[in-house]
């Protein structure tokens, strides 16, 4: 068998759907039906998951670090808000895509700054862009509403069929549908030859260039796509909450996103999704127990997570299931996580 055939066979096998993935999405859908009183937090998690997915695309697959991803989130949020407020595009799905495209355009323009330089420079540049936009939004408060945010956003029914309700049911299913569709797209992209070339670049840009991968063009492409995703997440935020204020650009938003990926793990798409669930649940649990000092406990948990390390936690999480598998199917069937992954 030739090396090329070997590679493509491996790639195709990797791209196949697994039962566990189907189960994941079924459980997500089941949750949406099972907890009718918690639509808003679930919608919040779905938005955060989409946002994390966007960062995962550049961080996990192309190795671009960013501390300013809120820039695109914010641009998407304000675009969607302004479009709804001034009646430019009133249909939410069309507005969502338009807002994503605006963020995408910004992503394309700023990608040239980001691909120059190494990790540290990138952190600085991305952070700078987000701060710049936040300051601009504050300066032009007659357009953005400044600290008070855009007031009086009223959303039209989705596809003229489903009106947003006050308890967030439509908002949640809308967010989940968008998340799922964009996830499918992302999954398709990362398993395509394009996605594989990104991994090659992540592993060794020089060697990738040597085998004929146009490194800069690929990085620009994925960064632009990632901006589109973040813009959609931002637009979803505005559409489902009817709010957009300066904090969409805040540094905390970008930093939280990093934490989400640290918790969930980068480079396999589900990391952002799992991370978003865990992160929000931690926040929810701690802020219920102690509304005043919950940040302390979140910080502590994060430090512990990093100290313990994900591989060890995976082993702990898999200990009980493996015990059962061992009883039934013998030692060989035991599931493990490769150390190099985490």
């Amino acid at each position, binding site marked *: 068998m030739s090396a090329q055939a070997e590679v493509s066979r491996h790639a195709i096998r*990797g791209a196949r759907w*697994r039962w*566990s*993935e189907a*189960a*994941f999405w079924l*459980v*997500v859908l089941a*949750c949406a039906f*099972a*907890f009718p*009183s*918690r639509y*808003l*937090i679930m919608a*919040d998690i779905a938005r955060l998951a989409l946002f994390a997915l966007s960062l995962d695309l550049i961080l996990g697959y192309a190795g671009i670090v960013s501390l300013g991803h809120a820039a695109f989130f914010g641009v998407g949020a304000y675009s969607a808000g302004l479009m709804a407020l001034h009646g430019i595009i009133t249909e939410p799905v069309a507005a969502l895509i338009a807002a994503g495209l605006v963020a995408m355009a910004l992503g394309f323009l700023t990608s040239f700054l980001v691909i120059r330089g190494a990790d540290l420079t990138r952190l600085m540049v991305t952070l700078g862009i987000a701060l710049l936009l936040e300051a601009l939004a*504050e300066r032009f*408060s007659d357009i953005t509403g*400044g*600290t*008070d*945010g855009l*007031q009086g956003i009223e959303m039209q029914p989705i596809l003229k069929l489903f009106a947003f309700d*006050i*308890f*967030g049911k439509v908002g949640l299913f809308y967010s989940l549908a968008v998340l799922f569709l964009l996830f499918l797209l992302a999954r398709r992209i990362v398993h395509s030859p394009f996605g594989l070339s990104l991994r090659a670049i992540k592993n060794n840009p020089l060697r990738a260039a040597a085998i004929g991968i146009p490194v800069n063009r690929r990085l620009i492409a994925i960064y632009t796509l990632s901006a589109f995703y973040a813009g959609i997440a931002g637009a979803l*935020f505005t559409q489902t*909450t009817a*709010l957009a*204020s*300066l*904090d969409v650009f805040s540094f905390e938003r970008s930093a939280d996103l990093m934490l989400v990926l640290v918790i969930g*793990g980068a*480079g*396999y798409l*589900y990391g952002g999704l*799992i991370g978003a*669930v*865990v992160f929000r*649940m931690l926040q*929810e*649990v701690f*802020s*219920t127990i102690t*509304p*005043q000092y*919950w*940040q302390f406990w979140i910080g502590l948990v994060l430090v512990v997570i990093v100290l313990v390390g994900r591989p060890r936690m*995976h082993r702990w*999480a*898999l200990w009980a*299931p493996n015990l059962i598998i061992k009883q039934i199917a013998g030692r060989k069937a035991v*599931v*493990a*996580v*490769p150390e190099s*992954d985490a």
Partner: protein
Amino acid sequence: MFIRTKMLLPIATVAAVAGMVALTPARADEAVKIGLILPMTGGQASTGKQIDNAVKLYMQQHGDTVAGKKVEVILKDDAAVPDNTKRLAQELIVNDKVGFIAGFGVTPAALAAAPLATQAKIPEIVMAAGTSIITERSPYIVRTSFTLAQSSTIIGDWAVKNGIKKVATLTSDYAPGNDALNFFKQNFTAGGGEIVEEVKVPLANPDFAPFLQRMKDAKPDAMFVFVPAGQGGNFMKQYAERGLDKAGIRVIGPGDVMDDDLLNGMGDAALGTVTAHLYSAAHPSAMNKEFVAAYKKAFGNRPGFMAVSGYDGIHLIYEALKKTGGKTDGDALVGAMKGMKWESPRGPISIDPETRDIVQNIYIRKVEKVDGELYNVEFATFEAVKDSGKTKK
């Protein structure tokens, strides 16, 4: 790379489901629940802490049963971010079946919860946010704090009458700041005063130094200052550092900048500052003396105007419940609150039956040293001031 998805996904989702189940509270019992949504973290945390303290104090003093029902307060932190407020309010209403939502540290937060109050027919007691429009956003909103129009118009009139001709303004750039500025300007310029410099400072950036330099260069008789509760200390520090006190530029404004819980740490630069406000810890009534003493004993510092707003807010809830005999029907409760009059630590107050906004005395106060501590000493009173900032019908 791909093996991990096999087991991890189901485990993560199962954990998530378990978490959701654990967080879904048990059925509501007979207690009356109050959802208290406040900024307990972030830039507005001092507001949240004062109100939370005051509510605790009131419940210690008056017990936790009213009209035969147990009262339970559920405190939530929204960090003054409106989408958090909205989510928390919704969850409190749907999951915890609260009879009231209360608190709201900033205007956007109060506005975000307004449609929920209307939809669920639940009273929304605003204990902090001070923009005039708030009570117009839902027929279920009742306010026990203040509006910026109340104090800003009065200090505007006072400034004209007391020989202040040129004023530079420094206000936080958000709805209450703009309210304060506009109402001050309206009354001050109508009386013949002149605004020589107008500066709006970002809410989230409490570095006043560059703005203060511009104030100094404009050489006004006084500067009109509005910053939200909690930022006054920082402002006065920089005011003194830049030597504006020595340049003879006095500070006037609504009393937010001279918030009692920070006042004593401001130093002598604050002496002589004249502000118009609803409450001073030095208010000379027996009830206030008792309130201040109890608050100091319980929490170790002085109550500010946010504390008194929270104290009156929970009092309003108790009294409304007494009137309805413990029934938590939203319309009946709001009906009971309308026109209610009582004596508060700040003086006599009432709820305007038309606007559901607070009617209260506004006092003109000057910072003086009393027993070695700085206090806002009241020297003139404007009785039963209504909010003049409502949309003209």
